[in-house]
């Protein structure tokens, strides 16, 4: 809730310059305390309405919802983003999108083994493809074929059917994104 103007105004006290008394005709012995103590007058600043285009302020306020997904007809998109096919492709599985309308690909860095020579841990980088419903194993077969054809070397996958997730070792996330888009999800 916006603070009231009065509470904000109280922050704006100003010390008035007391140079004026140097030019007064009053002799110092008539009122010795006036000379001894500096004059302090507190001046609150007043505020006036500023003629501002309110659109400039509205532009600074964040949106509260995720923007709706762009239509496929608005594309092609230079960033490489693709809309999912509508209706979805006729495959035994379905790969959903995240709430940000992006393919559900996540990176993971797991500790592998201790290298006794450097006494440092070696890490393995995995890519997880989530939100898979239907025949997850069929998806795994398609994914493996696609990646091995692109890369030329075998990739390891771990399928979690209950979660609808496939973890891949040996392939970059960009390639998995290419697979998801190529399948039309």
């Amino acid at each position, binding site marked *: 809730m916006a603070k009231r103007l009065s509470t904000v105004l109280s922050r704006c006290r100003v010390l008035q310059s007391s140079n004026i008394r140097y030019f007064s005709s009053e002799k110092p012995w008539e009122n010795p305390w006036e000379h001894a103590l500096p004059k302090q007058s507190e001046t609150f600043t007043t505020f006036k309405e500023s003629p501002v285009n309110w659109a400039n*302020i509205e532009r*600074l*306020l964040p949106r509260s919802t995720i923007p709706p997904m762009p239509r496929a007809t608005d594309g092609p998109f230079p*960033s490489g983003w693709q809309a999912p096919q509508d209706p979805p492709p006729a495959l035994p599985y379905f790969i959903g999108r995240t709430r940000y309308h992006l393919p559900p690909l996540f990176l993971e860095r797991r500790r592998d083994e201790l290298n006794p020579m450097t006494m440092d841990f070696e890490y393995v980088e995995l890519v997880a493809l989530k939100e898979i419903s239907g025949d997850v194993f069929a998806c795994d077969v398609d994914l493996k074929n696609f990646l091995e054809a692109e890369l030329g070397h075998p990739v390891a996958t771990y399928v979690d059917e209950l979660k609808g997730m496939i973890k891949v070792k040996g392939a970059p996330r960009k390639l998995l994104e290419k697979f998801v888009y190529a399948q039309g999800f």
Partner: protein
Amino acid sequence: MSKHAVKSASERALQYVERTTRIKLQDLRDNPGARSSGRAVKNHHNSAGHTIGELQRSPKPPLGWIWGDWFRPWHRMFPGEASFNGDINLRREYTPLSLLELQRLIDLGWLPKDEPIDISTLCNTKLVRVNPQWRQFGIHLTDEGAEVFAAKVNIEVQWANQMTIAAIERAGGRIRTAYYDLDSLRAAVDPLAWFRDGNPIPPRKMPPHSLISYYADANNRGYLAPESEIATSEQRLSEILEYTRSVPAEQAEAWEAQTKQANQVFLGVKPGSLVSLADRKVFEPTHPALIEHYSPEEALADHLR
């Protein structure tokens, strides 16, 4: 008493105090993050291990504790070297944002079309975060994705290299690099919270000594560089990288209207203004001292190195 020619030191001192700005003792406070409290290390009469029960239930020693000394843990046993990472608390960081990510934000509708994009717009998406508390001074637009970038934008960032600038100008857009000091950045990264707290908009300070040359250089599209120099630099860059750079006059005028002044944090809003979201109005102070403070004739430079 009239003014005499020679004033005593105490009179002069009193004059300085009288003419100083309206600071009182209760107004003096540290800048945010200046002090941090240490964790209290307690030594409970060394009773942590007489029996197994005591050992299991006792408070455990702090990290790095070497037997005996509670105030010299392992990581404070060894002397440091002032020259090694001596300025670690003074270094600046910039959050990287690639051109690819920027293009994706535009494609997915996070950034408004035909409106200037600045750090407030990017932080409002909540997908790009800049934290002034961690001494992050803004956004560094990287050139990853320069070959696919195709959006015509009017963008203001804090750091950009030549390839990034070329990519934006090749697409027909406009890029400027601008400095935000940490106080202004706190307002810029979360304008809604700033307005809700009822804070006046801070005046943006000039860059510190080490950054003046960067932001005054037309090749970096610095906001302090003159427009004519920037135009020359744009043409030179387009010749080097072999693309055409021609901005129609109406577009240039529209961009001119969308440019902030050097001391403005938000476009079209004077520093020192109070924004009232409830009233949908903006108020500015009338006292000349405050007007001078928020829009000084000589711009104040940030005190950092």
